[in-house]
């Protein structure tokens, strides 16, 4: 099962290496990882999408992340009300009338064309992973020359529905 896990970490040397090294050593499969500054200086925010086999390994995952000395807080937000976005850049072969056809396809996805050359155009799409994936699937027949994704970044919505309970709170 895919889980979206966020971690706030102290911005010290080697912190990314420490975390990805631990995930690799303990055989966790990272689907995506995104890292960047947070609202606090010296603190970074990481968002992982990780495929885990069961609850026991999910529990291990959050505990091992928490165990890292530079990690301040770990949350599994998969089952909460969240905003989650990733960005993809897709370079598609296309000229002439194909361009307008592609434009018609991407419009409902609120994607935009951000670069055009003689033989290709580059599309930028932002959204949840399934939306991005759906657009990629639609564009495949046109010939994707290049594709890059940022990985998911995410946090909780300002308001949580009441019934949602903490799934993996293990601090006792």
């Amino acid at each position, binding site marked *: 099962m895919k889980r979206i896990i966020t971690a706030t*970490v*102290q911005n010290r*040397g*080697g912190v990314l*290496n*420490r975390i990805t*090294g*631990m995930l690799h*050593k303990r055989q966790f499969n990272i689907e995506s990882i995104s890292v960047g500054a947070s609202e606090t200086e010296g603190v970074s925010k990481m968002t992982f999408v990780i495929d885990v086999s069961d609850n*026991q390994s999910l*529990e*291990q995952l959050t*505990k*091992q992340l*928490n*165990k*890292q*000395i*530079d*990690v*301040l807080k770990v949350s599994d937000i998969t089952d909460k009300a969240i905003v989650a976005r990733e960005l993809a850049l897709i370079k598609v072969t296309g000229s002439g009338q194909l361009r307008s056809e592609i434009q018609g396809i991407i419009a409902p996805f609120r994607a935009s064309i951000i670069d055009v050359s003689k033989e290709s155009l580059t599309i930028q799409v932002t959204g949840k992973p399934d939306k991005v994936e759906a657009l990629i699937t639609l564009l495949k027949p046109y010939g994707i020359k290049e594709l890059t994704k940022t990985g998911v970044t995410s946090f909780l919505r300002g308001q949580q529905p009441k019934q949602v309970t903490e799934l993996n709170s*293990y*601090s*006792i």
Partner: protein
Amino acid sequence: MKARHEVEQHTNEVVTGADVLIDALVDEEVDTLFGYPGGAVLPIYDAIYRSQASFKHVLSRHEQGSIHAAEGYARVTGKPGVVLATSGPGATNLITGITDAMMDSLPLVVFTGQVANSVIGTDAFQEADVLGITTPITKYNYQVKNVSDIPKTVKEAFHIATSGRPGPVVIDIPKNISSTVELDQLEEEFSLPGYQPTTQPNPLQIVKLADALKNAKRPLILAGAGVTFAEASDQLKEFAEKYDIPVTNTLLGLGSFPGSHSLSLGMAGMHGTYTANMAIYECDLLINIGARFDDRLTGNLKHFAPKAKVAHIDIDPAEIGKNVPTDIPVVADAKETLQALLNTSIEKPDHDEWQDELQANKTNYPLWHDRSNELISPQWLLEQIFNESNGEAIVTTDVGQHQMWAAQYYQFDKPNRWVTSGGLGTMGFGFPAAIGAQFGAPDDLVVSVVGDGGFQMTFQELSILKERNLPVKVIILNNEALGMVRQWQESFYDERYSESIFSSQPDFVKLAESYGVRGLKVDKEEDVVEMLQDVFAYDGPVVVDCRVVQQTSVYPMIAPGKGIHEMIGVTK
């Protein structure tokens, strides 16, 4: 922040980053530094030479010797072992020991030299990516970027190494930092918002555990090294006695509960006692205190404590539920938890039937071994070592048959007397660890029980015995083979002894003598007791080459993949 320390007292007026480092070590009350010099640590060695530092430096003959010695020192004293090595090969020679310490939760603070900052990343002479290499095998690691950070970094490193679940910390010091003439204000204070180990147990969990204990008919305590680290042996004894609960130990937990106590079932696990393993199989409440349910303990997890409610007390939350599903998790220090349990009034349960059953197992299925051969029986030899040292020695071992026999036959009544490589299973650990143990406990008898294979990996440290007249007694169980490998080849590979028998051996007596150390050889059982009396009474180092039977196996045993109740070799 503070002004420059008492560094002015140094004989030389120049104060460098290295001098600041030495002061930081003095501040941490380091009394012994295990190390080996080299290019990138020349400024640090120069500072040691110039300073009148209150600690002694122990020069090994290989960095692996330094780090295992530091581990032995840490195990016996409970204080962090401190190591210094140079960059590149000096640092990489430490890797086995750092990993060993990580696996067995030993507090170490390891300083490695590094090439100057200006050439880091250029594949400079004796450059190695020590941070990259040691990240997965340390609790934490650093590279010092500014001289002013040295005091803060050292303080933080000692704090991390010794608090919570102990472990090794590496500080990598580029040569330009150690040689920089200090001008800046020094940073002293550190803050670690992401590291706050929980030491106090949650009262609700204590109630749950007390409740489970009240209702248990067949409770069992499994005591690991966490009890020793927490200095909780007295509380454990009081708790076990108060509620009449039998106690079994992990390999590394030996000594945390007196082995001679009537409630002690001995060691559990692959080569544990039948009584201990069957107690785990049959118990209805298993209280794990400071053990990590290692695979050599549990055997096949499907059959591990199948009838039991499992309570797990551990200071490291990540250990709970890692291998064995836990009903009552308690994240806390072992001593605090046992104290909280002792302060809770629990109705005293009646376990007579359970105790009778265990007692019958103890009587009917004791450890056994053969004594029919012309050479010395190794198990019997361990018994004699126990008898002749009155059970009061500090015993160190490598890994393998001799280690298991020592664990089985040397009964530890006190903590911090048993120094062995458990998690990593490191050959060559025992002898240098004994050196560190002797530095940590100068007045105690330190016996290093090693195999002929393992001893040959680190015997160069015999130099230290001579140099310091360190009275370590090395007992080599020499079976001219890699005993445990040979045993597994006999049992599981149809006696195909692939590369496990040594066809050539050094003369260990001459070897010892060439280092200026007394060497003895014994190959008859009738000479053993007299030899041991002589060796233990001798005021100085001795190496004894004991020729023991090769064709003998460690029993009883849980074969790989089997359950804890499926021991083989339980009786003759």
